[in-house]
């Protein structure tokens, strides 16, 4: 084993020697490839990268990355990743999770990681199903869908991950489909760059237990009209020829066609991902048709570890105990001879 002497990686440097074991056709392959492709551009030495996951098909991910990795237990990866990052803030810490792992058993750790704004990059593989355990409904499964554990259809309302993230005071939220490698890479890079907890929801297809769940959005014939990809500073346009866009009507977003009813590009909303107020971000996250892809929110604020560092410096300056020994001998003591 020698030290890697250069940062000029190719994506192959990030592929481990382990055989990839997802079902043929699983959306996870494309995500893996995109992550491996983006890593060289993130500009971090691979020994400084850690992938942490819970349990699920998606959570096998760390084994396939030739970085440090921890395949932990179901739902707890956000807390484990927080521990990694606080122990060594110079690491680039990524968490891979599924809709069950993040939003069912792991929901609490997920929202608390978001609240604290530790600098983690969390990729949420949302296939709206429990893949690994062979097809039960998840907290994002459509209302009424029949699955192994809902033979007559589910009766619980699904979460919308974006709403939950922003409601938990999330600073960064993005969404992207597993069918769009270019956008995946762009978005992963943004997530890596953003300091604070970044959540990327990936619309991932499970060919075995929930095939075509996103086909209405991602099928070739639907894509242009059913997905809008937004970018900071740009007007929110979509359609095969960017002929449609989003405008605000009262308190709601509405899709319109340029030229119709006197609508011009002026009327189209311009995306501000960076602003603190999350009202528009929430609307974008909620929108169902078209569904919004791209970085929806990227508000910058202190991270948990930055604040911790500041606090430590402050105590160093002010504490009367300069060492553990000082502490031990502090207070009332007496000598016995």
């Amino acid at each position, binding site marked *: 084993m020698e030290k890697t002497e250069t940062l000029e990686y190719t994506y192959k440097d990030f592929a481990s020697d382990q055989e990839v074991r997802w079902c043929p056709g699983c959306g996870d392959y494309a995500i893996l490839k995109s992550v491996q492709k983006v890593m060289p551009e993130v500009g971090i030495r691979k020994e400084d990268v850690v992938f942490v996951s819970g*349990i699920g098909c998606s959570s096998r991910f760390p084994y396939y990355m030739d970085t440090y990795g*921890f395949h932990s237990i179901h739902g707890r990866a956000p807390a484990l990743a927080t521990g990694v990052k606080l122990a060594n803030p110079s690491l680039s810490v990524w968490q891979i999770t599924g809709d069950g792992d993040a939003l069912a058993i792991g929901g609490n*750790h997920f929202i608390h990681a978001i609240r604290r704004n530790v600098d983690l990059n969390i990729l949420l593989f949302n296939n709206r199903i429990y893949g690994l355990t062979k097809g039960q409904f998840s907290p994002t499964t459509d209302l009424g869908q029949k699955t192994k554990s809902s033979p007559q259809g589910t009766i619980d309302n699904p979460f919308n991950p974006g709403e939950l993230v922003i409601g938990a005071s999330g600073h960064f939220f993005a969404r992207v489909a597993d069918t769009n490698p270019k956008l995946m890479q762009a978005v992963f890079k943004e997530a890596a760059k953003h300091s604070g907890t970044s959540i990327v929801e990936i619309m991932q297809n499970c060919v075995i237990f929930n095939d075509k769940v996103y086909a209405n959005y991602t099928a070739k014939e639907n894509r242009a009209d059913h997905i809008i990809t937004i970018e900071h500073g740009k007007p929110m346009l979509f359609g095969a020829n960017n002929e449609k866009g989003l405008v605000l009507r009262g308190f709601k977003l509405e899709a319109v066609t340029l030229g119709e009813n006197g609508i011009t590009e002026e009327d189209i909303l311009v995306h501000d991902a960076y602003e603190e107020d999350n009202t528009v971000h929430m609307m974008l996250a909620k929108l169902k048709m078209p569904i919004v892809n791209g970085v929806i929110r990227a508000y910058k604020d202190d991270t948990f570890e930055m604040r911790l560092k500041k606090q430590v410096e402050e105590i160093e300056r002010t504490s009367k105990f300069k060492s553990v020994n000082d502490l031990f001998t502090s207070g009332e*003591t007496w000598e016995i001879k």
Partner: protein
Amino acid sequence: MGTTAVQELDKVVIKFAGDSGDGMQLTGTQFTGTSALLGNDIATFPDYPAEIRAPQGTVAGVSGFQVHIGQTHIYTPGDQPDVLVAMNAAALKANISEVPRGKTIIIDIDNFKRKDWEKAGFAEDPLESGVLKDYHVIEAPITSLTRKALEGLGLDNKSITRSKNMFALGMVYWMFSRPLDYTERFLKDKFAKKELIYEGNVKALKAGYNYAETIEALSSASTILPADMAPGLYKNIMGNEATAWGFLAAAEKAGKELFLGSYPITPASEILHEISKHKHFGAKAFQAEDEIAGITSAIGAAFAGDLAITTTSGPGLALKGEALGLAVMTELPLVVVDVQRGGPSTGLPTKTEQSDLMQALYGRNGESPVIVVAAKSPAHCFDMAFMASKLALEHVTPVVLLTDGYVANGSQPWRIKQVEDLDDIVPHEASKNMMNWQPYERDTASLARYMVYPGMAGYEHRIGGLEKDHITGNISYDPRNHEEMVRIREEKVQRVANYIPDLEVQGEESGELLVVGWGGTYGSLTTAINQCQAQGRPVGHAHFSFIKPLPKNTAEVFGRFKKIVVCELNNGQLVNYLRGELPQFDYLQYNKIQGLPFRVAELTEKIADILAGK
């Protein structure tokens, strides 16, 4: 107790009791501090009301602080008070059954009016009903005397009333010939910015002292001579504080940062509070969203190279079970502290018990061995926190450290250690020039794997909760590999026996009866054995701080005695574990499950019974 009176002449147990708001904890602490400075050995035990502040003047709202001081070694806060200070009727009600007849009770008669004793649950006026007739009662109008003493000082009523604890303290100081300066200094510090309150408190203190002198509160005011303690610098330390400091010391010694992932829970929270204060020592106290995040964040920190710990009490340990299994499977160094309290479920949160041993040993799915150790006393928490860290880092395995509410909240003089004086801790890590390092390659002696942390180039690797190949750590479903790994994980823990001290015997080295205990009952058992010996009873005492693995000489020690009795504050947990580990011996057992420590008298009686063949 009559038989033990002779031995106890050189010690005294004082209990201060009053309403939650009466400042009894402070009063007790002051008496302790003053006595410590005089060179006495001491042991204290605060006795809070359960969880929530109860209505004033009721038994549920009584707060007490018991201190045991002596000129010889003290191991427990004492069974029963020689002096009870009862600031109100409820305090009397709550404690009188514990005070042996003939002892002294100081009463603030201002709080013994009809409404007071009714609220306290007395059917009749206790001052008249005769319940106090066998006691040496000192009735003092403490509240009104305090008011008078502070008249004209310009203090508000509330502050005046609050000073009555100082009046009571002053009285007790006089009775035991303690000087006032320690408390005066303390008050000066505490009320540095509240001159008036400072003055009021000192005035009340002195007034109490003088009042006791005036009424000659005890026919002969007794003094306790200094104890015969090893030379050195001492300070008074609480169990939880000692635990926290043990970890701070271990981290420094190991050259690591300390990471604590924790969620508050009685009676463990103070460890979190203490470590939170010292972030600048590289001690990261992370208050997690729950116990599971507490332990999993610590696991992450361990993976990344910190000395990682998590602290909790019983219900929290139950929640940590699954994740602790992950630490076992991945073989990471981690210390889990369980400050035991009364169970099951929420149980008796402010009371003590030793009923989490089985949970510590077995509370996880699969074959999931961890090292289990326990602390014997408040000051010993320091040593065991240090030792637990050392074992975790050197053997690359999780360690559960069991303390309990009694030890955690009690205090004891601690001979101050400096980091230089402590054993080395050498984390078991791969060196950069190790050839062909593999994640699950092991040291042949200890079977510890060699840790590598993220950041080390060329050593990138992945670990996880699935069974892993015994060398590479890659996922392995191979049946024989699994069996081998199950056995290795167990054997690795068993080999720790080669690195820990032998079991020692106090009292007789062999003979009739061996009294076995573990953890926080050390003080009670030691005192009981001392008394038995003094009475010529041939008993030995072996006390476990290392439970899994057992010390190597355990069977040899057990073999030297005709009978073995295992004494525990539970329904028989260590004894069952011993039956599994050393089935060749017969074990008697003695169990108490009342949320209370053993009383020395109970133990000596039991021992006498066994020796008499009862």
